[in-house]
């Protein structure tokens, strides 16, 4: 009987430990496990320019622009666009091939270096898409509806 009580107490202590640990983790983990920052966070954090980071957000509508640049004698197409979290915006410049799913109004994650305030030089561009799946026809109907409203 007594021994059983002892075990019960140990298990209870263990449970509290576990709960305590989980609470600590849940409150502190967000920062560390995050895959990318939003533009707002980038502005708040004051990240050094030598630091490779990832920034994610929506590609702002009608912000995509391309221009030809000459680097080391080769003609390369520099792509620039703006990503936004609807509070802050960040201008991204990128040389390379965009993923197929890259579209204005869609999510994107870019990886690279912060050049100066509001400017970002991307090394990689990853498309991030949302959880909606539908056939094109329905999409059209939906967007028509949205437009009406």
């Amino acid at each position: 009987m007594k021994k059983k009580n002892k075990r019960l107490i140990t298990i209870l202590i263990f449970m509290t430990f576990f709960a305590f640990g989980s609470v600590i983790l849940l409150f502190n983990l967000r920062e560390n496990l995050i895959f990318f920052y939003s533009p707002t966070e980038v502005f708040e954090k004051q990240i050094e320019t030598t630091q490779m980071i990832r920034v994610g957000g929506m590609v702002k509508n009608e912000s995509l622009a391309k221009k030809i640049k000459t680097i080391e004698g080769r003609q390369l197409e520099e792509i620039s666009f703006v990503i936004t979290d609807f509070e802050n915006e960040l201008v991204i410049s990128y040389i390379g091939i965009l993923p197929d799913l890259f579209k204005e109004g869609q999510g994107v994650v870019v990886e690279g270096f912060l050049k100066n305030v509001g400017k970002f030089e991307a090394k990689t561009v990853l498309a991030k898409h949302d959880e909606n799946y539908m056939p094109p026809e329905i999409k059209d109907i939906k967007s028509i509806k949205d437009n009406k409203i």
Partner: protein
Amino acid sequence: MIFNLANPLRFQRLTEKIEPITLNIAIILLLVGLFFCFFGSPPDYLQGETVRIMYIHVPCAWFSLMIYSIIAICSIFSIVFKHTLADLISRSCAPIGACFTLATLLSGSIWGKPTWGTWWVWDARLTSELVLLVIYLGLIIINNAYEDKSKADRYSSILAIIGIINLPIIKWSVDWWSTLHQPASISKFSSPSIDPSMLLPLFIMTFSFFFFFISILLVRVRGEIIQRKIEVIRFNRMV
């Protein structure tokens, strides 16, 4: 009542009856499902044809989690009640689960290339899924490394129970932290954000996989039971 059914011998007899039925269902569903996957469903408005990978990826991902949950529940059972059938089931489940996890990872990477633009990133969901695979591998290794099967069962149960921590992380990592992987489309509280025309093949495939899983599991468990029987007879043969 449950323990009555859980008698290995009775279980074996039951499985002999069930197994052909489940296998047939699985095959029929698979054929129908494959038709719907490739011909009977529309392309996505954004991804186009690549969306069809979903019909493999998502069921595999669900089963990788579900099978682990089964193993975990059986492990708790085997630790608390020391029931042999629970051991047999978790032992038989581990390789199947590992296969599903591997399939998830592979199909995910294959899908990731056209959609995200990369095979692999270290975001929370993908990493934790990879950890799941490693845990599965650990379970398999333990199950085979010890000569003494009952010891192996005990140890792998312990490992499986520790590994439970990983499950909620896989499941909700997309909600807790910002990840590249998309948040839940179907398994969420509001209505699914996938069009019904795409949901249909997904569900057919899911059920097909489910029945496949059940029939493979039954075969494996039966094999295990027979093996143990042989062992008992071998060990108890008198001089």
